[in-house]
């Protein structure tokens, strides 16, 4: 016990960073952003499972696993059908991710580069904005970290556990596939740099990882084969790969800088100078790391892994969607942070001063995100503006605050043509009997839609709503 206290006292500054991480992740967890339509849809699956009282193997989609729904059950039962209950398990996974990444990075690059890498990763606006959303896809970084953690852990069951988490990750969401490919390829390449004994042990135990991978993914593979309706046309998707690749350079600055992720909340992209400043800083740091890192091979391998991930991702996705690129963007922030740590070591900044820099950096990033995401959101409850995203436009309406709408429609028979609005209300109805959502237009008294312009019509019943319009049916 004394040794733990001693260790904690020595590393109090890490605990400060962790405390900041907790504050950032728990603040307004249930209300910023507002419950998303997709969160509602995934949450409704929990309701269906509880209602049917039967074992379910199909998640919200054929490519989304059901495991996360089972994880959500105790939270829903304890806290009710609300955004907070859905997001709490995600934040818990985030906490595990924080410590696992610290362990991995520290073991590979030493404490200070690890801390800087972790700060840029977990305090980036991308992480703070996206990694609280209760989507299955949000767990991808968690599964990447756990599978890498077990691959490199020297234990009897390392391959078995690594394979299992890779399988569970892929089962959780098919978009994990590029990450899984990158993790496996990098692991195999990294074996070349290790001793002959480790290579032969690893290769002779690799089959155990394949078995456990299938244990994690087998059920979902069956679901993917049985329910293909929501999977689009993979052949056509593959054909358009080069088109997506060509569009990437246009998107890259706003993607890596976090500008588009900020716009999801506020509807406003960062100014162009700011976007390019952040973007080029990240690119500079990333390349700088290749020259100043003490573990050049490993650092280079990580970059290779990021590239493999990106190429594979562009190959399998049908369109640009921000959530697909979270892992890519976060990896770039991570390597930039590592590089910053190498730089501070290189120019011999005293250790204590580096610790202070780390805390200040975390605070700056936190303040940046609060200023660009939290405060504008709290002020307006989000935004329904559109913003450009590579080959298409994205709307910020998915994240708008729904609470003002709920007060307006209390005890009124409502309907919405918009699936995302309907999904949110359907989910919330399970705990809130004042929401009277009807199944079709015919039975409704009031119609809900997003407010896309400032024009207010005479049939509106809550003209003060900023992001929604509730109108009496004609």
């Amino acid at each position: 016990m004394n040794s733990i206290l001693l260790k904690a006292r020595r590393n109090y500054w890490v605990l400060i960073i962790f405390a900041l991480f907790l504050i950032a992740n728990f603040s307004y967890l249930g209300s910023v952003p507002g419950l998303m339509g997709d969160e509602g849809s995934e949450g409704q699956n929990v309701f269906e499972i509880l209602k049917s009282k039967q074992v379910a193997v199909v998640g919200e989609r054929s490519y989304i696993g059901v495991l996360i729904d089972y994880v959500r059950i105790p939270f829903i039962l304890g806290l009710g059908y609300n955004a907070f209950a859905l997001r709490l398990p995600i934040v818990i996974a985030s906490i595990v991710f924080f410590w696992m990444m610290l362990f991995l990075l520290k073991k590979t690059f030493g404490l200070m580069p690890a801390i800087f890498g972790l700060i840029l990763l977990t305090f980036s606006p991308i992480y703070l904005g996206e990694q609280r959303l209760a989507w299955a896809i949000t767990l991808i970084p968690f599964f990447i970290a756990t599978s890498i953690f077990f691959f490199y852990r020297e234990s009897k069951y390392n391959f078995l556990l690594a394979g299992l988490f890779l399988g569970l990750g892929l089962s959780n969401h098919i978009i994990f596939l590029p990450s899984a490919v990158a993790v496996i390829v990098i692991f195999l390449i990294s074996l070349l740099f290790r001793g002959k004994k480790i290579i032969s042990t690893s290769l002779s135990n690799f089959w155990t990882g394949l078995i456990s991978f299938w244990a994690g993914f087998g059920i979902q593979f069956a679901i993917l084969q049985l329910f293909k309706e929501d999977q689009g046309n993979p052949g056509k998707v593959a054909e358009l790969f080069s088109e997506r690749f060509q569009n990437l350079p246009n998107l890259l600055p706003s993607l890596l800088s976090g500008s588009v992720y900020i716009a999801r909340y506020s509807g406003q992209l960062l100014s162009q100078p700011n976007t390019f400043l952040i973007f080029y800083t990240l690119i500079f740091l990333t390349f700088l790391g290749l020259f100043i890192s003490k573990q050049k091979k490993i650092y280079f391998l990580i970059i290779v892994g990021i590239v493999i991930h990106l190429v594979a991702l562009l190959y399998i996705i049908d369109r640009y969607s921000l959530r697909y690129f979270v892992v890519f963007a976060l990896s770039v922030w991570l390597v930039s942070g590592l590089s910053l740590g190498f730089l501070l070591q290189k120019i011999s900044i005293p250790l204590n001063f580096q610790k202070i820099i780390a805390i200040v950096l975390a605070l700056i990033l936190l303040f940046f995100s609060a200023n660009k995401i939290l405060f504008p959101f709290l002020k307006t409850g989000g935004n329904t503006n559109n913003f450009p995203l590579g080959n298409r436009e994205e709307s910020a309406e998915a994240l708008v605050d729904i609470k003002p709408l709920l007060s307006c429609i209390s005890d009124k028979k409502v309907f919405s043509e918009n699936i995302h609005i309907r999904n949110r209300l359907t989910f919330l109805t399970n705990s809130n009997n004042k929401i009277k959502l009807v199944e079709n237009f015919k039975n409704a008294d009031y119609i809900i839609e997003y407010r896309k312009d400032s024009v207010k019509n005479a049939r509106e019943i809550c003209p003060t709503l900023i992001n929604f319009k509730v109108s009496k049916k004609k």
Partner: protein
Amino acid sequence: MKIFLSKITRTRIILATLFLIFLIVNFAYLNRVPGLVGDEGYEGLSVTEHIKNLRNPILGRESYVSFWVDYFRIPFVLLFGFSTLALRIPMIIASLAMFWLTWIVLKRIFGEYFALFGLIFFIFSPAFILYQRISWPINFLPLFALLTLESLTSKRKNKVLTAGLAAGFGTSTHFVFFPFVLSLIISALLLKKIEIKKIFSYWTFIVSFLAGFGIQLAILITYGVESSRMGGGMASYASKIISLISSIPIYFSGTIYFSELIGTNFPTLTILTLSILIFLISLSLLLKPKRREAALWLLCLGIFVLFETYIVNYFHIRYFHLAVLAIWALAGIGLGKLLVKYFANKKVFLFSPFFVSLILILLTVYFAFIPYLKFEGSTKIYADSGVSYDSAGHSADIKPLVDCIDKLPKTVYAAEPKIQNRLLFLANGNPNIKIAEKRSEANLFIDYRGEGPGQESKSRNKEMCPELNHFIVIPNNDFQKN
């Protein structure tokens, strides 16, 4: 006098000779005895659909039967055509593996000499010779049981992992394997082979079990199980136990395997064989050494049968086939103990493995092979359990029927699915056979002789192939007029 067989070379020579005999027995009349069985035709149709891409790639014949067996059959069907032989070669491959696995498992559990007789009783039992050749997924279950046992009894580092994988694949192959997995776990717990404190160290079993069973589990949950086949239930369990008790004599004696082929029950042979088996099993339990192992084997078997009875909704020997093989193996162990105790110093001791093998093979040849080849099977009714009856028509030789309709340029139809399925499968490899999907589209109607709607055909004059022993082929119009 153990010297006769304790030497490695002698054992090897005996094993090699037994294996040779085993090969001959298993390849003998592989495609003729029995002829293509009704459900084999149905299995074959599943393979055809996979080849023609008409079926979801992960769906087998039923929700509780895996697709992998179909894929295993595909190269043989492509190589040997749509024939009985093509469907059965995979079974023979499994049987070859089973020979050696049985030897390894029994040797590890009971020791070399007893294992030899356990092996002989296992592989030359009527159950094995007559049933292991039929191309049903359920007939792969003994293979997976042996793979599971081989893993568990080995000293390999990852033995729990591989055991779980074999158990998972077995359960995936046919869900009636699950009681075997449960019986293994419960027996091990009862005999404290698994320490409760270390129970969590067996998590790798669960992981690999899921790896083997995951896909089928998803299919089972998605589509459920046809309730008339399986599902279990405590309400009917007591009556099922009573049925089980009345079925045990014909099942465990192995005489049911003869009845399935030639449609006759053998009450005297049943009593005689069962008595010998009970005597030998008692010896395996009473004579030293390895009494504890014999008791564990029997306990596991008992639990398996009880669970199996719970999950199946009707009795058929195929559900208890694994138990029959296991009980015969244990009887073989008992015989081995008897021989060691009383005949170890006699010269006959050296030749006893061959002598016992010969008796067992002759038993099957005399009661099954010869009558079947002579009469082309049967369509007689026989008791297929203690409570139900079935027609042997499902295994009657279909070759004469195929030869008959091959010459008739007409479209045929059989209302009996077990005839229709066989013809549908074989028609894929024979363009002369034209099968109608509906009765109204057919020129000729086919049924078993002596039963069913074809009985109206009083004389053989109207029949297209009056020489057939077990089938009638009549003009469809004649049937409709009647």
